[in-house]
């Protein structure tokens, strides 16, 4: 039996029944990483020793018979912009290529407390800026369904690891679609939780008002299990929401009768690839046949969201990335005349081109010359929020494609940042409004590459997303694994 094919639930059951051991499970993943990581570029750092130690500890907890989380002994990958104590956290950038954090991010700590096993740190676009994992200083990640294709991004490594059997689940981060888009390209489930329900403490900030940590998993049930572990109170994040956190697995019911689903007319646009339109239409038919009420809705500001997002996220990023100056941590240029020369040379040598471009655009966006447009972008954000609020008075979830196309060739859009960003038209609005959304596989295109369906719900309604996605998975069947 190939242990790396098991879902969290399946592996947890075998661990509990002593059919397999934590070390066997972890070793199976480490072996597979050894064989495939160089080719796929999923991990920047592999924690062989730590993983085995944690597996042994988890085994002890299971053996002692204590009541433990289903994540105990389950091997995971963590995106390399999430802090891990004592383990290189590079953000896929040269400027942090020697940075060993002295603390764990809250989400990581919560997973450790559950007994999850750290396999390593997954690849991403440098500082999570990008949609293809091509701008990583450590090299590209490849889509396991077709290695000439990008895996999406910025959480490309996290999606590749889960899709290719190099991790049972992983954490990604989503600022404008960075969990959902790679999940859709790699045929896995990716959830961007409501802003504020997963602590951002220990996440290297890209755009603080948009960023959110979330799970990448093989199916919806696993997604609920990981969300159970990472969601909840943290006094170290002032944006956390003090709500009653439910058991997210309680929503996994194969029942979508009376569910009100809205399909935005703006999401089934001319730009959308025919194959994806076809898959989405089939999914809509599935929901209708199973008793859901599907109606057309409108989100009129959709086409302006990417432009507004680009301005706002670059502005926040330029401010957040000002801290990388070669003084307190990270890379420092070796040859400089004075303090300003030190800053400039460190940043010029330490950041990659796409990061520098966004810092420049963000700095310009915050200059007096551009302030009218910065305000306009904030107004777009307000209207996007209002559009959603209005639609959620009439429907429970919004259904549409995750991306305008499936995975594209490595190099195809590398020098076309605008064209790449415009592919995120269906995902960025969700971050602007701070609501939750999930990408679930809904078939393959004519090239055999996965297609993702995006389900969007109002703040704190992850349960509704999980229920709809679970029912869809049960009824339509997944797309299977790529190996």
């Amino acid at each position, binding site marked *: 039996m190939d242990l790396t094919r098991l879902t969290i639930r399946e592996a947890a059951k075998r661990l509990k029944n002593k059919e397999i051991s934590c070390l066997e499970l972890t070793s199976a993943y480490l072996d597979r990483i050894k064989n495939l990581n160089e080719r796929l570029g999923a991990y920047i750092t592999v924690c062989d020793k730590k993983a085995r130690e944690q597996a042994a500890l988890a085994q002890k907890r299971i053996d002692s018979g204590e009541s433990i989380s289903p994540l105990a002994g389950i091997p995971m990958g963590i995106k390399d912009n999430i802090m891990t104590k004592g383990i290189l956290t590079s953000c896929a950038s040269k400027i942090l290529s020697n940075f060993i954090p002295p*603390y764990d991010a809250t989400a990581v700590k919560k997973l450790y407390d559950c007994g999850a096993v750290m396999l390593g740190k997954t690849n991403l676009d440098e500082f999570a800026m990008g949609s293809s994992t091509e701008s990583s200083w450590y090299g590209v990640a490849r889509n396991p369904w077709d290695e000439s294709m990008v895996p999406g991004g910025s959480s490309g490594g996290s999606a590749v690891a889960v899709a290719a059997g190099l991790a049972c689940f992983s954490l990604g981060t989503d600022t404008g679609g960075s969990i959902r888009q790679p999940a859709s390209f790699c045929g896995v489930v990716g959830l961007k939780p409501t802003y504020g329900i997963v602590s951002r403490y220990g996440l290297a900030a890209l755009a603080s008002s948009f960023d959110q940590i979330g799970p990448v998993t093989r199916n919806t049930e696993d997604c609920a299990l990981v969300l159970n572990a990472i969601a909840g109170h943290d006094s170290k994040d*002032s944006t956390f929401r003090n709500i009653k956190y439910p058991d997210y697995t309680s929503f996994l019911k194969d029942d979508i009768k009376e569910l009100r689903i809205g399909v935005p007319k703006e999401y089934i646009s001319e730009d959308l690839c025919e194959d994806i339109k076809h898959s989405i239409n089939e999914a809509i038919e599935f929901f209708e046949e199973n008793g859901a009420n599907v109606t057309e809705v409108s989100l009129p500001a959709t086409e*302006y969201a990417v*432009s507004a997002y*680009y301005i706002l996220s670059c502005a926040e990023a330029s401010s957040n990335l000002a801290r990388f100056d070669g003084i307190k*941590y990270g890379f420092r240029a070796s040859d400089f005349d004075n303090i300003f020369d030190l800053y400039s040379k460190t940043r010029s040598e330490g950041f990659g081109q796409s990061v520098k471009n966004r810092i420049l655009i963000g700095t310009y966006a915050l200059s007096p010359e551009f302030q009218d447009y910065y305000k306009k972008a904030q107004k777009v954000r307000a209207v996007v929020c209002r559009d959603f609020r*209005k639609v959620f008075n009439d429907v429970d979830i919004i259904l549409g494609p995750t991306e305008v196309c499936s995975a594209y060739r490595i190099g195809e859009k590398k020098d076309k940042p605008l064209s790449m960003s415009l592919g995120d038209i269906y995902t960025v609005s969700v971050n602007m409004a701070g609501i939750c959304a999930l990408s679930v596989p809904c078939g393959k295109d004519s090239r055999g590459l996965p297609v993702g369906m995006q389900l969007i719900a109002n703040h*704190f309604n992850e349960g509704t997303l999980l229920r709809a996605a679970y029912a869809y998975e049960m009824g339509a069947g997944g797309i299977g694994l790529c190996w």
Partner: protein
Amino acid sequence: MEITDKDVLKTAVIARINISEEELSKLTDNIKRIINYIRNKLDEFDERFDPEQSYFDKTDSVKTNPDKFYFKKFDPGKPDIKNNTEIEHFAATNALREDMPESHFSREDMMANAPDSEDGFFRVPKVVPWKS
């Protein structure tokens, strides 16, 4: 107003990023293309959504009740949220806690990542020009 090489250089100084002469024109072109696209889109948005008319979509054939769903006037400080308790909760609070002392990082831990340090301090080039 088009972005020029001069604008890009000025921005680069503020952002503390060096730009070589060879890369300048290509970089300006890239930034110009992106900024122009964004400007056009945001201008179009302004034409379509009128702030005085509650950002009503003027091209939308189905009119909705603006009092119910839209702000009277753009005011991010006072969202009209009374119809949705969840959003009300979302918008209304800030997560604050008592400012209590708790465990903190040791000096050694904090200095461990420093590129250059001496006696527990960060070492940097001279900041203030010294005149004798």
